[in-house]
């Protein structure tokens, strides 16, 4: 009985239109690029901040 009811249920979830898919993909790429820039900036600033002898300290 339950199985029969489940089989008749429409597919759950939201089906994205091609336009929504394109927009989501573009947003995802933009977020990835922004995070990439953020990581590079943090890396470069760390190099600048630490350059004054952090690698030459006595062991």
């Amino acid at each position: 009985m339950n199985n029969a009811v489940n089989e008749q249920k429409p597919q759950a979830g939201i089906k994205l239109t091609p336009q929504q898919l394109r927009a989501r993909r573009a947003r995802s790429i933009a977020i990835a690029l922004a995070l990439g820039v953020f990581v590079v900036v943090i890396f470069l600033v760390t190099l600048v901040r630490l350059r004054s002898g952090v690698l030459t300290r006595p062991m």
Partner: protein
Amino acid sequence: MSVTYSRAEPSIAGVGDYIELMKPRVMSLVVFTALVGLVVAPGHLHPVLAFAALLCITVGAGAAGALNMWYDADIDACMARTAGRPIPRGRVTPGEAAGFGVTLAAFSIVSLGLLVNLVAAALLAFTIVFYVVIYTMWLKRATPQNIVIGGAAGALPPLIGWTAATGSIAVEPIVLFLIIFFWTPPHFWALALYRSEDYARAGVPMLPVVAGVAETRRQILVYTLILTPLGAAPWLLGYAGPLYGAAALALGAVMIALALRVRAERDGHKASKQLFGFSILYLFLLFAMLLADRLSVSLIGHSVA
């Protein structure tokens, strides 16, 4: 008036819509004036740190723009100039814009504090809060002095640039702040003169709507007369050369001439449109001259050394 925006379906907002939320044209002026504040400051900031500071200020300005569009969506929908913005057009929901703005604001302030210095970060936080809470949420809908007081937010970037370089506040960046502060009323009131019907429809108490066109034209002239000597102040105070001083006075004379034409204008808005257009050029050229002056001094200093 209340406008309801709702969408149950997934977002169709593109990257361009989010960039538009950040008000890129305003952002470019903010970045440029902050750059000038940073360059004219004494001492030397490593180029990587200077870039990081400018990036944080840029993102902070974008955050303020997004939060402004979130709160003002009802006003924007009523005005021809702003009806095509992403929220009134239904491309971005108010919630998305608010989330975007708050995230960018938090990122930019914390990053500026950690990467550059805390004074600059505190000033950036103050600027964003002032623009969003004091100007957008309160003054804009409450008083015809909205853009006079609210203009302080737009005038702060050179001060942030200076503090990013030095970690402290001095007289020189306060003069740059005052230049933009006194430039803002003639700039926006010139626009408001030929958009007053829009503002009236949206219920925004801009000066032409509340006090009338004649009073607005008079006040434009008064602020322009204050602005011109202020524009030359960096030369008068000795931190810009005579070439800058001459250019500032010449540009100021054109601003006064246009403000006088606005004052004398009886029909149409030709003079107002000219003043609005030239005011953007005025501020850009003034700060570009200051930048060129400082860079030439640095180059001469290096070649002599």
